[in-house]
């Protein structure tokens, strides 16, 4: 359906045009991204795969407003993060992440001094707003879908790796963001927990209508996705749609 849309930048959950990101200068200059054009379709599960050092993490950081591109245009959820070398400032990017993006990282997802529940509602806390009754219903629903009901009072140190990642997913979903970025979410997990977390991400797309972008170097993990984007040497080498 994206192929028939006249202006994909407007309807895609996230778009990049001519995206480059370089580190250093002169002889030590490294081009992590060397001109990426990409559209992430709303309501799909997209896997970004590629070998180590291919630039897939940098791509995710630029799409998520964690890093500022050297050049090119990035539009996420209707917000122009960067265009023609100009980017939103740090405060605006921070607000954008808080209100529009959910994150699941490989490790260190949870703050050790907060309980699972406190970690889940952290985005509301940071935004300084009280969850509405709708927010609370949604939170309760997400927690049930992820099977975390009886773990919410525990601190991260009392949870297994898989449970910790599920709490991280719950936190990413609880604000109903435009897009969820997951950076190697199964990197530290055994195969059973991996399947568990991937299933949860899959269900968030199918049952909750969430847009999810997952960076992974694990082809098995990528097989759960609707679309697979292959990054090599800072460029999109392949974009396979309708995989799942």
């Amino acid at each position: 359906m994206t192929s028939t849309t006249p202006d994909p930048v407007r309807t895609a959950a996230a778009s990049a045009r001519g995206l480059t990101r370089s580190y250093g200068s002169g002889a030590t200059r490294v081009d992590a991204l060397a001109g990426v054009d990409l559209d992430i379709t709303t309501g799909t599960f997209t896997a970004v795969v590629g070998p180590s050092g291919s630039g897939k993490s940098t791509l995710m950081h630029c799409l998520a407003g964690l890093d500022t591109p050297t050049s090119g245009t990035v539009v996420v959820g209707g917000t122009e993060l960067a265009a023609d070398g100009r980017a939103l400032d740090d405060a605006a990017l921070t607000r954008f992440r808080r209100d529009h993006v959910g994150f699941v990282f490989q490790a260190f997802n949870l703050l050790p001094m907060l309980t699972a529940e406190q970690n889940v509602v952290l985005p509301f806390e940071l935004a300084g707003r009280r969850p509405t009754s709708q927010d609370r219903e949604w939170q309760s629903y997400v927690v049930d879908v992820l099977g975390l009901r009886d773990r919410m009072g525990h601190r991260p140190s009392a949870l297994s790796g898989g449970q910790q990642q599920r709490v991280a997913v719950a936190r990413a979903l609880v604000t109903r963001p435009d897009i969820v970025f997951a950076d190697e979410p199964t990197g530290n997990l055994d195969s059973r927990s991996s399947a568990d977390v991937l299933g949860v991400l899959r269900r968030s797309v199918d049952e909750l209508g969430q847009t999810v972008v997952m960076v992974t170097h694990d082809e098995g993990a990528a097989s759960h996705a609707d679309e697979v984007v292959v990054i090599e040497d800072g460029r999109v080498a392949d974009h396979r749609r309708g995989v799942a």
Partner: protein
Amino acid sequence: MAALRLPTRVVATARVPVSSSGTRAGDDVAVGTVATDAALRPERLTSGRFPTGPGQALVASDRAAALGVRVGDEIVVGRAGDTVTARVVGLTRSADDAALLTWPDLARLRGDTLVSAVVVGGGATPADVRAAGLPDRAGVTSAEDFLQHRAQELTRGVDAVSAVLLGFAAVALFVSVLVIANTFSVLLAQRQRELALLRCVGASRQQVRRSVRTEALVIGMGASTLALAVGTGLGHLIVTVVHAVAPGAPVGEAHVAPAWAVGGWVLGVLVTLLASVVPSRRTTRIEPLAALRPLGAVDPRTVAGAGRIGLGLVLAAGGTALLALAAVVHSLPVMLLGGFASFGGLLALGPVVVPACIRAVAAPLGRLGGAPTRLAAANACRHPRRTAATAASLLVGTTLVTGLVVGSASVRGSVVGAMDHDHPVDAVLSSSRPLAPEVAERVRGIDGVVGAAPVRGTTARAAGLGEVTVLGAPGGSLARGAPAYARPAAGTAYVSPALLNEMADQRRIRLVRDGRAVTLRAEPAPGVDGVYVASAELDRLGGASTRAVWVRGSDGRSDADDVVAALGSVARASGADLSESLSDRAYVLLQLDVVLYTVVGLLSIALVIALLGIANTLGLSVLERGREHALLRALGLTRGQLRRMLAAEAVLLAVVTGAIGIAVGAAYASVGVAAVIAPAVPDTGVHVVVPVGQLGLVLLLALVAGLAACLLPARRAARTAPAAGLALE
């Protein structure tokens, strides 16, 4: 004495009143001698010239201002019937004596003169002086011996000052040990993986411990060398600046004593080594494969934690009991023992007490301050032992400062009470003739005078006393401490102690004027001249007119000498005598303030070290939490919120610790007042005074210190981009 032609100087002082045209300089002031021989004359003139013989005097320039005396005026030295009059020929800068007379003049005063030495110079010997017929109440000393003796006296004073300074240095060193030990603990906790890796590749426990202690030794030697260089440089700099700014200041050349320098260096190294003992011993518990475990919080259920808490409870309870005992039996040793024990107990209980207090304070604050404050509170409590160790150094400083501030305020209250009792009225202008009604008005107009009222009076005869001035107190709030004579009861006369002593029957006084007589019950009234009676009694005697003006000075910072000088000029213009206690009161309070501020100033070194300790721990914690901060930033924590979070953590720690220190310090001061100060002044008594303003300032300083401590760590944490922080391994 006039026969003395040898070059001599009699060193003597008398404590007597000094007045000039009716204005008196305080009650009794020190009057010393000045030599006519220039070789035996250390004084410096600010104007005029030195006396060349009897009948001439020097006056200290600050007293001259208070008395309204200029060069050429006459001053009267001594008590009624035993006075010497001299013309002021010069003003001098003297710290001790209000006025300086030549020895023949001072020797004419019958009493009160204390001769401390007779100094001879110019080749004369003590024997020559004795042959010349000097008063035998003085010992005779050669100029050389006298100088040596004075030098020794001064050196003893300097030694005492050195001892006090070293005491404060000891406090600073103790705080340093706490800070260094905590820094080592945090550093080694962060290096746990490296140390575990060393153990994995074959290092023994002893080798790991030795490597850590060697590191401490090297750091201690480096820091001590640096400190020695900086300290010596600073000393030279201060001396140079003093010489440049005030060329005449009595400051010698900077001098480094080798023994002190070496001793200080060794002490610095030892302190660093001592501070590393406990943290380095903890490294031997690191298991080779425990590398990935994060530093755990102290757990009261573990054996070590329970032991520490048990010891803390025993020390705190025992120390408190000893303090209570000390307050009852008035024993300084028991108080010191109880103080050390209870404070040790508090430090041992710190991992429980400090986080509990932080949580209690943070709960209501978190509702106002939002997520950053709540996260800060959680962060401040996550390593209770580390939090307690950081708090300990600040706790020492704030407890000592509060103890001193409260103790000093209590002593001050006691001293003020005693002065109010002895001198209820700040100043009295009095005259044996009626005073013009506008005198009180003019006095009221003086800056630094808060009230003045005319006092009606008359002259009457009393048996054995002759003519006495009888006054009716003006009432109102001019007198301090509400003495009885300020509101005289009917049928009672309040008599000055001097007059009372001369009465045959001290219980009754009969006053007669123009055939009219009243007989009154006599009561002693300290701090007054004459006799005070109720208004009705005064009217029965008749002939009352304004005879005096009572003056109340302000308690503010207005210069007492200026007020006294202004009062003196009003008194002279209206032909009244002035007697005042304002300058003595100001002087005594100034002494108390100087002692307090000096001691607090010295203790502030310990506070600065504690502040560095907070900054240090926070800085290391920020490094440790790089990934957490990156995660929070990714989730939408703004830079400002991150900075606020770290600021809130530092401020919570500093303010809560400060509050604990203030509470504990005030309690210690109360015990100290009850155990040591109250028995020393059984007559006036002493109450614990808690100066809320000053203690609020201590808390405010703790707050500012917390903010200052978080500046650098917060800047560094906020600068890290979230993506870079996530890449940290």
